[in-house]
């Protein structure tokens, strides 16, 4: 199978690999998995008070396409608004990396990870703002 140069680049030089403080209420953590292939993807977003994604980190155990998808998605959302990330669709990731059809689910996983991280962030914010 021929993979695109961009995909290989993200796999060999993954951007934003690592972790953020998951206890911080500025950080949303999304952990998702794909039972079919056994992949797990952890994606974290650090979000400022005005709704800008200041930092994004990931750690993925999976195939090259899953690693490249999560690497690319952190690059895509960094510096953008929460609304932008919320509306990000897997098709944009798949297209950018020219994912072959059998690997489209890797981009779905990356989209799910972003959504899960945003949901976690919202949960934390709601808990923080709730009257004690």
């Amino acid at each position, binding site marked *: 199978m021929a993979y695109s140069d961009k995909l290989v680049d993200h796999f060999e030089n993954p951007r934003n690999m690592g972790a953020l403080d998951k206890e911080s209420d500025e950080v949303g953590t999304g952990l998702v998995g794909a*039972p*079919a292939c*056994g*992949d797990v993807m952890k994606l974290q977003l650090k979000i400022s008070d005005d709704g800008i994604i200041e930092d994004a980190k990931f750690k993925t155990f999976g195939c090259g396409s899953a690693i490249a998808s999560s690497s690319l998605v952190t690059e895509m959302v960094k510096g953008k608004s929460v609304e932008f990330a919320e509306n990000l669709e897997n098709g944009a990731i798949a297209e950018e990396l020219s994912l072959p059809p*059998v690997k489209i*689910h890797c981009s779905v996983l990356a989209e799910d990870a972003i959504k899960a991280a945003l949901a976690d962030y919202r949960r934390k914010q709601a808990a923080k703002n709730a009257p004690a």
Partner: protein
Amino acid sequence: MTQCWQCREPVQGPVCAGCGAIQPPPPHPDLFAILGMSPSFVIDRKAVDKAWRAASRKVHPDRFAGASAVQRRMALQWTAHLNRARKVIRDETQRAWYLATGSERPSEGANKQPDPAFLEEVFELNMLRAEDPEAAILRAGELQGTEQARLAALFAAQEKGGSLDAVPAILNRLNYLSTVISGGHE
């Protein structure tokens, strides 16, 4: 009892006893029934192979080489069903999935998320594997044993009316664990 499509006599099984015509296979046959087996999680693989050989002989395309194109096609369809039945029933994961859901396990798209605590455990196991593969594999092996025991217990309880609803989730967990053990992410 159905009628033979050729001689109109009542027919049982894939081949008419009267005129010898092969019958059209049902579109979604019961995989255990077409091998002449009762559905069961506990199986003897040799018995499966034996049942498959016996069933295959009756519908083997060579037997219908001189028959009409329609019958040759039916022989191929039967053979394909029988081969699939053997493959699904021999494999523990596929067999369990089939028994629990009545359909074959999708190779992809069974993407129901496992519970977060388990996913966290799998993530930690993968982290550990990078540092200490032996420890990670041992731990994953233990968890695998626990899940396999749960699976067997569910099927044992089914005979007393227990539900198999939890089976797909257990199979998904086993799949994660086997990926940790093999270290294989294709």
